[in-house]
């Protein structure tokens, strides 16, 4: 029972992520695809999604985005991901139990970044907010579950 209570701690983040994803409409993706050069905040957030989905990533090449040091984006891969009509469903059904410590470590340079915030995402689009919350919630879930689940054995 103690253990279940600990896992409860991850619930608010998961519920928020779920409703954030549900708030994304298919049109949001269509509109985003129509943009030739989407805002940087969107590119950074999509890189976070790519890492969780273990998609291909470029090497860590440093670029400057409005005074923030940052990695060159992988937006061409992200675009491919969006072309999949099941993209949103794949996030809703994402097997969060399979996230590894390594996945979280690879995510950290992104989630710690000044542009990887709900506030920055909100200036771009509702889609960005939804994905930003989702990535953060997946990381939170893993960080709580990795402490709690071993106690269940």
């Amino acid at each position: 029972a103690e253990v279940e209570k600990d896992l409860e701690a991850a619930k608010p983040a998961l519920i928020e992520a779920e409703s954030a994803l549900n708030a994304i409409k298919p049109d949001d993706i269509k509109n985003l695809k129509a943009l030739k050069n989407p805002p940087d905040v969107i590119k950074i957030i999509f890189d976070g999604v790519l890492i969780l989905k273990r998609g291909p990533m470029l090497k860590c090449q440093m670029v400057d985005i409005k005074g923030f040091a940052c990695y060159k984006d992988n937006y061409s891969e992200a675009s491919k991901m969006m072309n999949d009509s099941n993209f949103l469903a794949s996030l809703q059904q994402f097997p969060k139990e399979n996230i590894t410590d390594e996945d979280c470590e690879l995510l950290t340079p992104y989630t710690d970044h000044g542009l990887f915030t709900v506030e920055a995402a909100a200036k771009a689009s509702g889609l960005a907010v939804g994905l930003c919350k989702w990535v953060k919630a997946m990381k939170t879930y893993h960080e709580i579950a990795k402490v709690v689940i071993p106690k269940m054995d």
Partner: protein
Amino acid sequence: MTVGPQTSIKDAIKNFETKWNCVASEESKVLLYGQLPPVVKMDNTLGTLKACKHLSLSSNCIEKIAGLKGLEQLEVLSLGRNQIKKLEGLDDVASTLKELWISYNLLDKLNGIEKLTNLTVVYMSNNLIAKWTEFDKFKELPNIEELLFVGNPLWEVHTKSDDYRINVAGRIPWLKKLDGVPVDDDEREGGKALGL
């Protein structure tokens, strides 16, 4: 080849100490990941990390594994998202190393892994392993329990032909978890039937 800006191991250690207000040589977990500009070279400065059990150097541009002499307690080595082509320079930590995290690199061969017989966890998604003859070097690891292999060319081909998991289970029947999902008895049976 032009040499761009890079962070030395010495400076990466300083950044870690400043960020966490600690003395790196006393820490069991030393986090040097995601340096901007990236770390390109591992060097002997790492050997000063005497208490280090978990060393993280992921999200950099390291091309070669080196400088691990002196890390006598190292159990987890995290090198994901670098530019590493070979498993080398690991002899000094082979007797203690339990987990190797090396996803998003350029490994096309596994030569050298056979010396790391204490490994229980190998994360190596998104590398360049394309042949079962390479993959079969995992058979030399009697203690391996968990493997992450998605995103390798071999994974890609056999995911399409839908015989990936049984092929792995047939080769390493003692593996407990593959790509985050437990290996089950049906998969082991299926693998056995392949007669590998």
